[in-house]
């Protein structure tokens, strides 16, 4: 998988590129709109990540040009602006997804994966993390074969964490996915739910699955080694 990253903030582009390369993606980086356009013209990318504020050629213009040439390539917009009309305008111009700075890198990786997964993807209805089973179809949760009763919100939280085991999600990300944007900034609600989830999912068992990374957020440990 090869992707193009057009971002003029050198530090941001380095970070993003590093995070993507860690996921085994090949990443080309362009520092301005013009060189981004040259790269996009020359190669067929699987995904393009685009900053809107670019020197030489604006991100919006670059977006239009790429879309004229290639209708298929998924494009993820990266921006510090988040005025709603602008979002709508860019979606109309052919953006597939939108991420507002400051974003969590886990979020970026998830969105990239989601964009690349588009099309016919067979998804198993049961998520398995160690001895935990989350059935997306029946919304039932079992651990070591024992059924665990969860409230709908607890279930949604657990399913979100279990879908990407090993990854740590920021509380803001969890809020956005499990609650809605009205709860933005109300991150303590996540702590409360995680605590409740722990008493049900982890407390009765010797191996603890829910992991806290201070300052970053929560996740499920991938393998139950500790």
């Amino acid at each position: 998988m090869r992707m193009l990253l057009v971002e003029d903030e050198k530090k941001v582009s380095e970070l993003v590129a590093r995070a993507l390369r860690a996921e085994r993606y090949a990443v080309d980086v362009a520092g301005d709109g013009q060189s981004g356009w040259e790269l996009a013209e020359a190669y067929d990318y699987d995904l393009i990540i685009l900053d809107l504020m670019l020197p030489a050629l604006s991100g919006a213009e670059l977006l239009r040009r790429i879309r004229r040439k290639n209708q298929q390539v998924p494009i993820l917009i990266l921006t510090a602006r988040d005025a709603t009309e602008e979002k709508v305008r860019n979606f109309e111009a052919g953006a597939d997804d939108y991420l507002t700075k400051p974003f969590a890198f886990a979020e970026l990786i998830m969105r990239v994966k989601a964009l690349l997964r588009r099309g016919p993807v067979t998804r198993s209805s049961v998520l398995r993390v160690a001895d935990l089973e989350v059935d997306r179809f029946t919304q039932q949760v079992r651990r070591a074969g024992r059924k665990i009763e969860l409230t709908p919100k607890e279930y949604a939280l657990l399913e979100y964490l279990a879908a990407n085991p090993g990854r740590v999600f920021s509380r803001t990300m969890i809020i956005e996915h499990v609650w809605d944007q009205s709860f933005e900034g109300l991150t303590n609600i996540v702590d409360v739910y995680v605590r409740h989830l722990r008493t049900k999912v982890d407390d009765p068992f010797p191996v603890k699955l829910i992991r806290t990374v201070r300052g970053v957020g929560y996740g499920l440990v991938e393998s139950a080694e500790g």
Partner: protein
Amino acid sequence: MNTRSLSFRLVAWYAGVLTIVFVLLGVLTFFFLRHYLEANLLDTQARRARQIADTLVAHASRGGEGAMLTQVENLYSPEANDRFIRITHTDGTVVYTSGAPLDGRFNPQQVPARAAGDDVGPGHKVRLPGGSLLIAARGATGTDGTRYLVEVGASGASTEATLTRVLVMLAVGLPIAVCVAVAGGFVLVRRALEPVERIARKAEEITQHSLSERLPVVRSGDELERLSVSLNHMISRLEEAIHGSKQFVADASHELRTPLTVMRGELESLAQDGQLKRETREALGSVLEEVERLGDIVEGLFALSRLDAGEAPAEWVRFDLAELAATTADQMSLLAEDKQVSVACESSRDVTVAGDRARLKQVVVNLLDNAIKYTPSGGHIALSVRREGAYAVLDVTDNGIGIPAEALPHVFKRFFRVDGSRSREQGGAGLGLSIVKSICSAHGAVIEVMSAPGRGSTFRIKQPLARDAAARPS
């Protein structure tokens, strides 16, 4: 009536000056007229005295004094003409005194005799019980050398009557004239100051959110035009300044995002490294928490600057505020439970409002979150939504620690904290209530807060019901 108003003071001064001028004019008129009339009358008497002196007294010696007197009586018939005639010798002996006039205005016998040797003056006034008498005197020398003094007088009654009439006319006419002039002046002042009233009213209407409006300018070329034009210039400068500061907040929060992204990205990737020492991980976590809070503040400021800029809401739909409140309260119940605070939601059905659902939900979330934060365990929070006339009223009441009276006017200000420590340790950015207020203003809603320290607070939002829902009976 406002006695300090410009129009009142102008009219009062005007009326005062006018009254003084009118009274002076009246007094002058009166005295001038009296002087003129009396001089005139005296003049007539003086001429008559001269006639008598020249024609008769000069010939007195011819027919003797008796003949002269008969002639005076015949020619001048003083009684019929209401005149007073007296002829005396210079030594004071009276030769002739006319009889009482027919109208009985005066008694000639009461007229004091002229002292001998009196100069023949222009005339004088004698006060008698019946009225005044104006007397002119003339000296004459008979052919025999006898010196006479001829006095001719006339009653000043008619002059006085005229003067009285003039006085009455002035006394009645003056107040009327003043009244009319004051009324006219009042109308004029009111008309002249009416634009001031309009400018003041419009100026009161212009708020921080309607600075694009201007005061009415009447192209009259007068001082008021200048005033309204210069006030408009001032509003323009104000608008620029406020716009500039808003733009600054928007730009600053925008510019802060990229560095925050980098900081957060670097720190996150570091924090997930399992090889770190425990203290290092703790320190990293602490820094990340602060970065997150900084991010929250930046987001909050950005959201506020967008609301201030009057950005059109993402959606404008009709929905049931009661239902929204109930759902939100339910979603947050665990947060309250965790703190052992109970949340009761009581709402009448079908309180339809129009607006941005997500933003109004944020209002409810922020208010409930605040209430939970500041209510100690065992406390109670009540959320209620009801209709009140054409308004939807949402109350969030808690029995928590409350807000001191001196802090109440400031709770909606950005970064305001009742006391430095109490909300910082709760992790608030200090922007929650400002955002609530901005969202409310964008929806035409009013928010107010009532609180008693130690007894709890109530936040009340009054939002107009959606148009046709208001017409339906509740």
